[in-house]
């Protein structure tokens, strides 16, 4: 599907490309932190977003983990939502119509326990009006391989990527887990397998304990760390990956402001995603768009693309 992106010639050009998808600006919402967008309709202008990425969708509905599912940590939070979602079929019938009506590209974050599940979700999403891209979450454990996450093994990561690519025409972004020894190995593997873009990072694995009760703060014991605390790790990984792949890299992790977003772009990100910040400031992603626009104007950039990877190292 083609979006007509209105361009005011007096404003800087904020458009960037994710594979064959052109988006109006480099700001997307991160999966699992923006619901299905509708939750924010009263609080911000959804039309300002470069793209909406929805909560991870699985083949069948998932109930998610028992509470407590979240806990605050220093400058961050842990979550163990347990990938609660309505499943791909109900997503298509219940959530997509509204999203489609937004006239903003919708990228569907998908997850599975096996290659076959990833494939089947992709097949069901094929041709659904409004679906402009797929983001493959490979941080989930592979049930067939003893629960090791797809995202920590380059061969498995590539296999998932290839499987999804074969079943869809829309751009495929692969979202990497940061919990690996060498992120560039995974990144190169998914690029070779056909990924149109690489999103990073997903959450770091962490844990919190409630001392008074001597219990884990999360029912699931471990959870995913997000927020400003992880920004330095995310920025480093974006920098490392952007130097070794030629597909666009999407920066994610602790981005709260336009300054944060621009730093990721300097490090090599073509676009960014806003996650935890949406919880604190529902207008965060819109403000990031506004701030990037203001920066581009102030710096007299014809196109925001000119700062991608523009970190000065000399």
């Amino acid at each position, binding site marked *: 599907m083609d979006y007509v992106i209105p361009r005011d010639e007096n404003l800087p050009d904020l458009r960037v490309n994710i594979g064959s998808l052109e988006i109006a600006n480099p700001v997307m919402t991160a999966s699992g932190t923006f619901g299905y967008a509708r939750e924010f309709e009263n609080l911000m202008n959804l039309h300002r977003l470069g793209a909406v990425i929805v909560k991870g969708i699985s083949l069948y509905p998932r109930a998610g*983990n028992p509470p407590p599912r979240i806990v605050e940590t220093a400058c961050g939070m842990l979550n163990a939502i347990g990938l609660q979602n309505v499943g791909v079929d109900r997503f298509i019938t219940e959530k997509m119509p509204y999203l489609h009506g937004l006239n903003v590209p919708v990228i569907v974050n998908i997850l599975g326990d096996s290659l076959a599940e990833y494939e089947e979700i992709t097949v069901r999403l094929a041709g659904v009006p409004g679906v402009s891209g797929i983001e493959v979450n490979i941080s989930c454990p592979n049930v067939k391989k003893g629960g090791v996450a797809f995202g920590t093994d380059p061969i498995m990561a590539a296999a998932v990527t290839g499987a999804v690519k074969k079943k869809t025409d829309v751009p495929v972004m692969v979202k990497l887990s940061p919990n690996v020894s060498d992120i560039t190995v995974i990144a190169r593997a998914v690029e070779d397998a056909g990924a149109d873009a690489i999103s990073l990072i997903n959450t770091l694995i962490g844990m919190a304990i409630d001392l008074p009760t001597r219990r884990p703060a999360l029912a699931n014991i471990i959870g995913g760390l997000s927020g400003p605390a992880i920004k330095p790790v995310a920025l480093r990984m974006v920098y490392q990956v952007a130097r070794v792949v030629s597909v666009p890299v999407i920066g994610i992790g602790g981005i709260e402001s336009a300054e944060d977003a621009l730093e990721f772009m300097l490090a090599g990100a073509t676009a960014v995603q806003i996650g935890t910040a949406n919880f604190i400031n529902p207008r965060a992603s819109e403000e990031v768009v506004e701030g990037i626009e203001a920066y581009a104007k102030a710096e007299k950039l014809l196109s925001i693309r000119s700062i991608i990877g523009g970190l000065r190292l000399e």
Partner: protein
Amino acid sequence: MSQYQEIATVARIEKFANKNFRLTLDCPQIAASAKPGQFVMIRTGIGKDPLLRRPFSVHQTSSGGRLQIYFKVVGRGTEILAQVKTDQEISVLGPLGRGFRLNVNAPAILIGGGLGIAPMLFLAKENCRLKRNCANDLVLLGAREKNEVEHLLDDFKRLGLRLLIATDDGSLGHHGLVTEILQSTILPPGCTVYTCGPEAMMAGVSRICQAQDIPCQVSVESVMACGMGACLGCSRPAKDGSYTHVCLNGPVYDAEDLLWTM
């Protein structure tokens, strides 16, 4: 349903007990649309730590665009909030959640325990406003000690409601639990119970109501990150085996729809 992210100005700070505070905020948009039982999410600090907003029930609103919260210092966020100064600006998000479904045709029994008293004042006001005559209605308030409740009594009394108090230490009213009063009081026929308080108290209230076949609405808590249905963090097991999300489907529920483990 309108929601706002508003920069509120602190108009007044009242310190009741050692750790109990009431803040009056100039916050016209949220104040104008809040309903009893709804809540707001407040940023307590300016930096990135504490990171998340904290949820507080709307305690009352005024037609002049003011909104009150009544809270207790229990951790870092509330400690910072207790130190705000008059005229300081703080970010408030709301109104959020589903409030009480007030049945104006039934006598109302309002039961607030501890900080669960907070939303009860708003509900009592709305109840009396809509019914005009609320002589048949009853408010039961429970607290650890006198200090935690006495400063709020005038506000309730002004409404003309019958008021019964219980304190754990007997420093005011009945010496014991508010559920004990509930059990020993003859309730008006056809009444509806609305309650907010500690989990154990609400479980007790809902048991009593169930036994007597009295409709009971409870306002429950949960840890929250977003308060608006985006994170799915505030899950709570529901009677039907699924998870309900307190910020969206609650905080007020029909007691019978929830699982009570206590």
